[in-house]
């Protein structure tokens, strides 16, 4: 550590203290004013610490990062313990345990089955031992097997059958939404907003051909040459156009997030805007 590091640290600590004092004064008279002033300063400090990472990795970022890792891990552990173990599991394990944790016992003749995940969970923890590590594979097998079975049918249904059947669109005009109005209307209304006859037809064609070419791109066991290669080329073009468009579309949402944070700094911490 050189001198400039100390100077920066000192300045930051001073500013922190100053902000704490000023906020405490501003909140004087309110309950827990001192704590709240500290916490608002803390939140602003942590926000700036994370932003300092944009310049380069530094002590303040490391501080925020390590604190966040510890706090968040503990937060999820507490939530998991209180809601799942105490809230859902204990009331089904035994009446004695429920009384001990002051939870209403949910009587059922099948409650014995809830001992199985407890045993499996303990088997999972056997990883930590040297000789019984193999036991941890059993609960893993249960989880992987169950979700694999679940995925197998669910995805076949929603991502395959449903998606395939929704490509069945009329390419010669949709009678409901865009009835054929004659050739004159077709030529005169070249509007992209999907109200024009042409746009409506183009939409269906582009979707249909796009899907086919996209699928061709994902063929793995056939060489992409000839007509097949050209279709796969069109497929990747359409994918790229889409990726570019969704990238551009997402910018708005990301800027909104930044607006939120800067508003916090300017309004809640510095009081520059109302």
């Amino acid at each position, binding site marked *: 550590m050189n001198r400039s590091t100390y100077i920066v640290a000192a300045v930051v600590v001073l500013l922190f203290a100053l902000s704490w004092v000023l906020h405490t004064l501003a909140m004087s008279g309110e309950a827990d004013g001192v704590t709240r002033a500290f916490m608002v300063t803390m939140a602003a400090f942590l926000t700036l610490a994370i932003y300092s990472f944009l310049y380069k990795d530094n002590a303040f970022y490391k501080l925020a990062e390590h604190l966040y890792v510890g706090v968040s891990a503990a937060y999820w552990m507490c939530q998991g313990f209180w809601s799942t173990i105490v809230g859902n599991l204990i009331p089904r394990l035994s009446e004695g345990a429920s009384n001990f944790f002051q939870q209403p016992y949910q009587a059922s003749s099948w409650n014995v089955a809830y001992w199985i995940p407890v045993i499996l969970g303990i088997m999972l923890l056997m990883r930590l031992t040297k000789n019984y590590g193999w036991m941890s594979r059993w609960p893993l097998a249960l989880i992987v097997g169950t979700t694999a079975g679940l995925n197998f049918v669910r995805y076949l249904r929603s991502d395959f059958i449903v998606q395939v059947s929704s490509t069945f669109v009329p390419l010669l005009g949709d009678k409901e939404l865009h009835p054929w109005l004659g050739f004159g209307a077709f030529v005169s209304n070249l509007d992209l*907003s*999907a109200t024009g006859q042409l746009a409506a037809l183009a939409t269906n064609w582009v979707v249909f051909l796009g899907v086919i070419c996209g699928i061709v791109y994902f063929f793995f066991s056939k060489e992409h040459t000839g007509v097949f290669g050209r279709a796969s080329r069109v497929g990747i073009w359409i994918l790229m156009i889409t990726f570019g468009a969704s990238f551009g579309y997402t910018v*708005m949402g990301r*800027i909104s997030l930044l607006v939120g944070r800067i508003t916090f700094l*300017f309004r809640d911490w510095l009081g520059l805007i109302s």
Partner: protein
Amino acid sequence: MPNLGVIISLLIIFGGLAWLLFRSLTGREVKRRVIFVFIFVAVAAPILFPITFEEHATPVVRDLFDRIETLPRGSRVLISFDYDPAMAPEVQPMANAISFHCLTRGHKVVCMCLWATGQTLLSNTINDVILPEFPNIIDGVDYVNIGYKAGNEGVLNVIVSDFKKMFPTDVNGVPLDSVPIFDEINSCADFDLIVALGGGRPGPKEWVLFVGDPADVPVGVGVAAVVAPQLYPYYPRQIIGILGGIKGAAEYESELAHRHEQFADMDKPGLNMMGPQTLAHITIMAFIVIGNIAFFTGRRRKDR
């Protein structure tokens, strides 16, 4: 004073961009940190010194605006608040602007919601816009809040033929039979315009399919940006106008401020939000252009 801030920050951004463009002509790349600074300034400056760009209403927005503008005074407008707090930053500005517009034009406004979460947001609009801006209007005569009814599309199926069956009273328990606005309203067909605000289900799409089409009432919609593209196929035949996301709200507000002076002094959250958005988008696009110029000049140099 804010104007000075606006000018300075715009000078910084555009001057900086021009300088970077000039530099890139020599094939030099921009450092990442420079980009970060520009993005920060582009977003922070308009928050500190509100910059409003002249928004020109696109036809999709103007169509709805013009419809409300040209309806004769005393027309009946139904506004449905079908959204939750998560969508509110985008949709609430539209709700405020449209309610304001309807009341300024002397239309009679009926407010309702199909989402339970919409009730708070509906009362926000009433308390923040309607009551302070129009001190002389009378509940029940000029506007009425009939609140929330559970049942989603089912509600629409009923009110399309009989309004009072589903909503016997307004939100305060006053029977609709004694509410003057409802003297001539029996079903949705008796409205001159329906404005559906939302983005989920039930939402604008359901209003069009279950009410707009069967009862032959014009429907205008205001939706969150993510769902706007899905509604374009219905425009202009089944939906007379679409406000999509914060951009649609900003266009509407700017059109409204243009034509009605009273609104020009009001808080315009949509337009305010557009300042950072517009500047940030322009900055990013400028960087893409600068990057390409640097790339091509650099390559030409290498070729030589």
